[in-house]
């Protein structure tokens, strides 16, 4: 256990370093884009004087390194700052949006992870059967279509023609839990269709991989049923790769869903991020990136810890 604690501490420290590098790269990236917030907001109505006044007020006239250092100093004090565009607290802006994103990711994960693992185990169990092929074809097709297409198909059948679910996920603070679930079902289903294939295939592959091992052969020779062999003997040993691929997909559900957000008008973090990049609202871009990067780092860390816990050889090294 002490080893795990040490590893977690090490990884967290490295994670902080990663966050720093990420923030630097993002800052430079946004600086390289043409135009700045003043020009983006004023658009066609920009005149040299108003742009200059805008820049003075937001301190955009300072050189980039000074702005970056000021931002970093604020972050180290735990202050995300204010949006340049509308002077709102970034922590507030991101807080609500991130909660929405997590909620959608959670609903999608609750549907997709058990579904994928079950389908995968069954596919391994009935390898090369009609079921195995069918489930492969269906999941691979759903991952091959672009997300917006899957989304529009679901909207067409379940919202426009079926009238079962709303076509837009209009959630607002103060909505009760089940109402909220009802409104995010369509985006969650879309995401499920997009991520299931990856997890299902990995589950199937890593179990089949183990089926050639001597201890499985031994179990076979003992006369155990196939179900018992797969669920009891193969699955626990296949957990490490499965956990890793599940975590990658969870991270995707948090950070990669902007298209689904747009199609379903869901107020998540992705939309906030895209808006801020378009308007060059650097502090918001930075803060969103930190949230995204931290999500990846923490989820990867979780995956590693779980892999170690699931593998006695790593948990108790000689």
């Amino acid at each position: 256990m002490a080893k795990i604690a040490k590893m977690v501490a090490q990884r967290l420290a490295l994670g902080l370093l990663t966050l720093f590098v990420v923030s630097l790269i993002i800052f430079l990236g946004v600086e390289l884009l043409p135009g700045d917030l003043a020009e983006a907001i004023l658009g066609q109505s920009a005149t040299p004087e108003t742009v200059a006044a805008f820049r003075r007020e937001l301190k955009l006239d300072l050189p980039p390194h000074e702005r970056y250092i000021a931002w970093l100093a604020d972050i180290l004090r735990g202050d995300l700052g204010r949006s340049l565009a509308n002077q709102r607290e970034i922590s507030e802006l991101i807080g609500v949006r991130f909660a929405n994103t997590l909620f959608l990711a959670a609903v999608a994960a609750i549907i997709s992870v058990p579904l994928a693992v079950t389908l995968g185990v069954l596919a391994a169990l009935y390898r090369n059967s009609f079921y195995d092929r069918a489930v492969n074809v269906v999941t691979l097709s759903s991952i091959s279509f672009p997300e917006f297409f899957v989304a529009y198909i679901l909207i067409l059948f379940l919202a426009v023609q079926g009238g079962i679910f709303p076509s837009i996920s209009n959630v607002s603070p103060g909505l009760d839990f089940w109402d909220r679930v009802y409104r995010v079902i369509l985006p969650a289903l879309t995401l499920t269709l997009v991520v299931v294939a990856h997890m299902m295939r990995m589950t199937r592959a890593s179990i089949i991989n183990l089926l050639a091992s001597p201890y499985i052969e031994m179990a076979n020779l003992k006369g155990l049923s196939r179900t018992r062999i797969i669920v009891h003997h193969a699955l626990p040993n296949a957990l490490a790769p499965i956990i890793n691929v599940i975590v990658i997909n969870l991270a995707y559900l948090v950070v990669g869903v902007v298209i689904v957000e747009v199609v379903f008008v869901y107020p998540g973090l992705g939309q906030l991020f895209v808006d801020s990049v378009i308007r060059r609202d650097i502090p918001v871009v930075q803060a969103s990136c930190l949230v995204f990067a931290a999500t990846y780092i923490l989820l990867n860390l979780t995956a590693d810890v779980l892999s170690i816990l699931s593998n006695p050889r790593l948990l108790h090294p000689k």
Partner: protein
Amino acid sequence: MKQLYYYCKLLECGKISRRDFMGRALALGATTALASSMAAQAVKAATPKKGGKLRLGIGHGSTTDTLDPATYENLYIQCVGGAIHNKLTEVSNTGGLVPELAESWEPTPDAKVWAFKLRKGVEFHNGKTLDAEDVVASINHHRGEESKSAAKPIVDPIEDVKADGKDTVVFTMKSGNADFPFIVSDYHLAIMPSKDGKVDALSGVGASGYTLDKFEPGVRTALKRFPNYWKTNRAHFDEGEFLAIVDVTARTNALTTGEIDAMDRVDIKTAHLLARNRNVKIVETSGTAHYTFAMRTDTAPFDNNDVRLALKYALDRKALLQSVLRGHGVVGNDHPIGRSNRYHADELPQRVYDIDKAKFHLKKAGHSSLKVDLSAADAAFAGAVDAAVLYKEHAAKAGIEINVVREPNDGYWSNVWLKKPWCAVYWGGRPTEDWMFSTAYADGAPWNDTFWKHDRFNKLLIQARAELDETKRREMYVEMQRIVSDEGGVVVPMFNNYVMGLSSKVQHDEMGSNWSLDGFRALERWWFA
């Protein structure tokens, strides 16, 4: 039955009389009782009814939106502004100017000093009573060195604004301006309550019929009816909800599934399909919004008027209107004044696609062939690149080779517009001729995107601005439109319509065409049947 329903709609819109309706309905086999009850219902729908919650899906909106009217940037926040703020004057739904917070106004004979008398007893959402100081502070919010207001150029001609007692505000202009009352109807110039000579622009407190309940930028805005609103025949809904739905398919789906009651910017490619839905009606208004191709007249070869004329004749406007706007617009005549403007010159001949004339002017300019770059991006207007490519095809027949340069959408207005010699531009248009010309055609105006200088035009502009005699003004503006059309640096292929989709239960009067969604006033002007 479908036919009957159609007539019913016509009656509702006032396009046919009750007598016509009865005749047609009976001809279709309806009983007299049914027909007359349908007619009664349709007519009843035209008298505003109170109550309900209007849900608008708007194709704009960003998380960076701010409540400060100085930096209203897109249609979404402009509609929010239209719902929470009143101005001194209002461009009514029929296009005329009507008093709003100002009760009346009086110019000096040279149109240089304007005294606005304020309406008495108007209450802001925070309980404060409107007085002259509020107006002064609200206007000054856009003026001065430190102003970052998009409206700064339009308040620049104001030399001084001061209160004269509690109910009168006096504006002194740098030079006479007969259209000044129109200018103060601009959506930026919202009147907000002041404190110590300053307004809190981010508070969202106004003097309109709806108070801001919740504002989540880029997502939704909740509005509640303000019980003490001074207008009695407006603000019929109890509540409003504006959703930012940028994706046009999502917006259309939301309308057809009843998630919203109205949407703007219908996808014109599928508008005819949407119109088949019985619960939806498509409404179009044609206003002052238009597309242009602006040539820098200070740069060769566009410094030669014959080259410009050759290019103007080398474009098939009708084809462009049909393919880029699918007919949802009207062709332009190379000047920026729309048919809804007061002094639109109907008498000017419409410029048409004429290869011979194009060749003639090209030859007169001393060219046998011509090669020019045209910069375009969809940031200029939706379909700008397509329009440029079509232009290239049309012009090729006249021996003009247009090289279409596809520019990035990002930073189009800062890096391409006003910089490249020839580029595609979008103009929302202005309610008055003077405003439009002073913004984009006057010598030295910051947005004179053709860098055009015409002495006669500039002289007329100043004369017409201070002229209070209607007939004389009209003559001057017609002449100016002719000058721009024949000698200006701008190709105006078309004026685009605002195309909106409304649920059939939404009722409205004649719809304002100065801006989309009834001049941003949908919430205040519409009602449910």
